[in-house]
């Protein structure tokens, strides 16, 4: 007898139809609270999608006010990918073309390459008030914003010159997706990562050739280019993960979120083969420790009070627990958890003149929390959150990996696994 397979009959696989209009997403949207011009996640997402299917003329350019923080998706009890629906609608229907400003902000790697070549000049120039005024009026990049400093010695160059050789001495290996920020602005974070991984017994390697993850290209509507870079990166990840059996770790929550989730959801670039083995360094380390495969030894004299800020994409990934648990392992570290709230910068969003006010209003409650917390510094996994918090509060910000690198006793740790 033929076996009958039960197939659920007529249950929707259109994700937006799973919305039961509970409106919780609207409460969690950081933009809606400060900017009434934004229709909100429910209206822009599932409700708007029905309208747009009726007539694309119902597309509303106000959707570009979405930060793509995905906090609506975290809040949604029905599992509707609200943020993805909004971003996909922008990709599909928006008629506004990216401006010169958007291209400059979006092409983090091209701009980074040029800027770091002339780092001293660029850094001095973009810090000058008159230059910022001109950028404000001509490019509509808000004059309050300070560009992150560019490094004269890129991380990749430093790595090839000083670190690469030593990495082969280890038995276990990982690849490192450093991202634009580490490469062009802050190589120290990459160096810190290598320090910890080496201490843990892992050699750190670069991908054959990594390209910018493309998050800024996506948010600025440069989809073709983003798709091209996504395909390139997925191939590069495959060479490491599939061919060499080396997982890929990163120190940027946004880069890794983009590669894991935005590639398939927004760009239609498949990544099943690499997704599970692509993660954040802190999660990678946590899992080793949790499985009993690794122990970290810390310096005795480390004493700091720090507050951890959960970046939106960490909230979406659900991964801040890994970073905070690692930090809490450090003896002498007094840990303050900040309520998870958006800082308002959302990558290139806050750099745009028209968004400056919204951006700062969104971040305000967070800034107040930070000022009240009386900490030595703030820890967070996202580079743009760092810029925003440093600009908007009196505190400095460090990456959890850098904090670990400062607190770790390298030799003692190495002894633990060499025994």
């Amino acid at each position, binding site marked *: 007898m033929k076996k009958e397979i039960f197939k659920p009959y007529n249950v929707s696989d259109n994700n937006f139809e799973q919305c*039961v209009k509970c409106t919780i997403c609207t409460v969690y949207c950081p933009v809606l609270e400060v900017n009434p011009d934004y229709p909100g996640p429910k209206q822009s997402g599932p409700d708007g999608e*029905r309208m747009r299917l009726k007539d694309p003329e*119902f597309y509303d350019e*106000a959707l570009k006010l979405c930060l793509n923080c995905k906090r609506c998706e975290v809040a949604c009890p029905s599992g509707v990918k609200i943020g993805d629906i909004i971003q996909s609608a922008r990709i599909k229907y928006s008629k506004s073309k990216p401006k010169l400003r958007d291209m400059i902000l979006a092409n983090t790697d091209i701009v980074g390459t040029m800027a770091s070549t002339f780092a001293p000049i660029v850094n001095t120039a973009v810090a000058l008030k008159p230059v910022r005024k001109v950028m404000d009026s001509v490019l509509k990049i808000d004059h309050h914003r300070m560009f992150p400093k560019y490094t004269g010695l890129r991380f990749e160059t430093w790595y090839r010159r000083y670190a690469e050789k030593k990495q082969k001495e280890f038995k276990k290996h990982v690849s490192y997706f450093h991202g634009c920020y580490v490469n062009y602005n802050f190589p120290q974070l990459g160096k810190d990562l290598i320090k910890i991984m080496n201490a843990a017994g892992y050699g750190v390697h670069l991908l054959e050739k990594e390209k910018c993850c493309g998050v800024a290209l996506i948010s600025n509507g440069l989809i073709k280019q983003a798709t091209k870079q996504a395909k390139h990166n997925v191939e590069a990840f495959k060479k490491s993960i599939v061919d060499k059996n080396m997982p890929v770790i990163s120190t940027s929550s946004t880069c890794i979120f983009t590669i894991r989730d935005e590639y398939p959801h927004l760009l239609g670039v498949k990544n099943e083969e690499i997704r599970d083995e692509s993660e954040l360094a802190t999660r990678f380390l946590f899992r080793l420790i949790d499985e009993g495969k690794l122990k970290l030894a810390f310096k005795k004299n480390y004493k700091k009070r720090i507050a951890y800020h959960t970046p939106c994409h960490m909230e979406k990934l659900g991964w801040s627990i890994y970073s905070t648990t690692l930090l809490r392992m450090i003896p002498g570290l007094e840990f303050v958890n900040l309520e998870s709230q958006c800082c308002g910068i959302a990558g290139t969003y806050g750099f745009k003149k028209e968004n400056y006010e919204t951006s700062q209003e969104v971040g305000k409650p967070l800034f107040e929390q930070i000022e009240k917390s009386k900490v030595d510094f703030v820890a967070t996994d996202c580079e743009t959150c760092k810029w925003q918090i440093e600009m908007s509060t009196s505190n400095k910000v460090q990456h959890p990996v850098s904090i670990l690198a400062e607190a770790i006793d390298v030799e003692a740790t190495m002894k633990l696994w060499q025994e």
Partner: protein
Amino acid sequence: MNKNRSKEYDVIIIGGGATGAGTARDCAMRGLSVLLVERHDFATGATGRNHGLLHSGARYAVTDHESAAECIEENMILRKIANHCIEENDGLFLTLPEDDIAFQSQFVDACSSAGISTEIIDPKLALQMEPSANPDLIGAVRVPDGSVDPFRLTMSNALDARLHGTDILTQHEVTDILKEQDRVIGVELFDHGKKEKVNYYGKIVCNAAGIWGHHIANFAGVNINMFPAKGSLLIFGHRVNKMVLNRCRKPANADILVPGDTICLIGTTSERIPIEEIDNMYVSKDDVDVLIREGVKLSPSLATTRILRAYAGVRPLVAADDDPSGRSISRGIVLMDHKERDGLEGFVTITGGKLMTYRLMAEEATDLICKKLSVDKKCETASIPLPGSEKSEETLSNAGNKIYTGASITQKSAKDRHGSLAHKIANGDSNEDSMVCECEGVSIGEVKYAINELHVNNLIDLRRRTRVGMGTCQGELCACRAAGLLCESMEEAGKAKDDLANFLQERWKGMSPIAWGETINEIQFTSWIYEGIYGLKPENN
């Protein structure tokens, strides 16, 4: 006692469907004094319970040449006079592997002899034009089908009738036909609002009550042999198709998929029911099964699309007078002068037909009424646009003239619904722009406009005027807001609560036959809100 005793209308029209409203408009435009009476609200019968398909006539081309020719003529007229009620989205007649492709050429020939333009489309091209169509199709013919919103169409006719002096009474049910010897002189009505009986007098009484015309005729002591045929339909949560999809074969069950406003719907079934059941419309499990099974053949993605609700309507089919057995049933227009037929003066019945031919039915009925009243004036309803339909320069895209505003959706939706009358809706201040219905983009301004100008007596009427509660949440968020606005302007609080319960009960009736998946989640959530939070109780209904 009754102030209306002194006033005698030229004509009293019974029935607020498309035919009744259309006849009222036509009569009023020819200078008659008109009273239009309706027991519930506009478009509550068969008018509002069909596909909303702007037939090109192609569906009838092979089997019923006369209907097909009428359809295409009226189709072209409606495009001109009612463009705000219509979407000119064209239709495809698909031939699937199980259908006979030879039928296609017979179909195309029949269409052209009825005056319906056709274009045979290569299956690959057809799929590009309509990606939701069944990819296995082996043939496709393009015809000038479209969508029509029956609620808007009926309301526009009623509005224009009113502009030409027609008095309108909704919530007034005919309880008797008043006669003097062998002459009808008026109607006895029951006013559901005031709960009292009232008489109105007219020289002619026109029975345009659709299937309920059976009872009306009985009040007058004449018999019309009607055969109610029930048709069930399913509404899907959003638009799957852009073009109307038909099967290229002889008309059968569930073979038309029509996109209409934010949704699309599949139908219909056809089942003879006893006349006693016409006020008790339900959709059975078998109906739902047939509709899904056949619908999926037109567009496979229907299998995984959320169904919003199911509903059924009754076609008023009339047996020919010389055939009381009902074997020879006409789907065409039936106009009866009861003077000639039954020796009863002052009474005419217009029935049969279909939504597409409502205007022609009205024209034929009005011609007869005018002849009886010796009024000599030509019909102009085919050339003068309905209110809201006047061509305007404003396209949908610049209806939301301010980008960067939360009101963009409501403005565009209002323009879509009310055409050139949308300017009457207050907007621009944050209160008027606030949304009542979030699924369909109905603002407070639009609800107020409907309450003040469009004969709204309760929430269900309001839904037909504005689409409040017609979206995915089926009243979950908007019902209480709309009830609040309605209460402010007309109802006492106690009555408003009952009204709210009635409205939600009516929404549930349509959802219950298809209550699974997201629909059951939604209804559960709705009941938490209204029973749990607001304390609405079963005794309110």
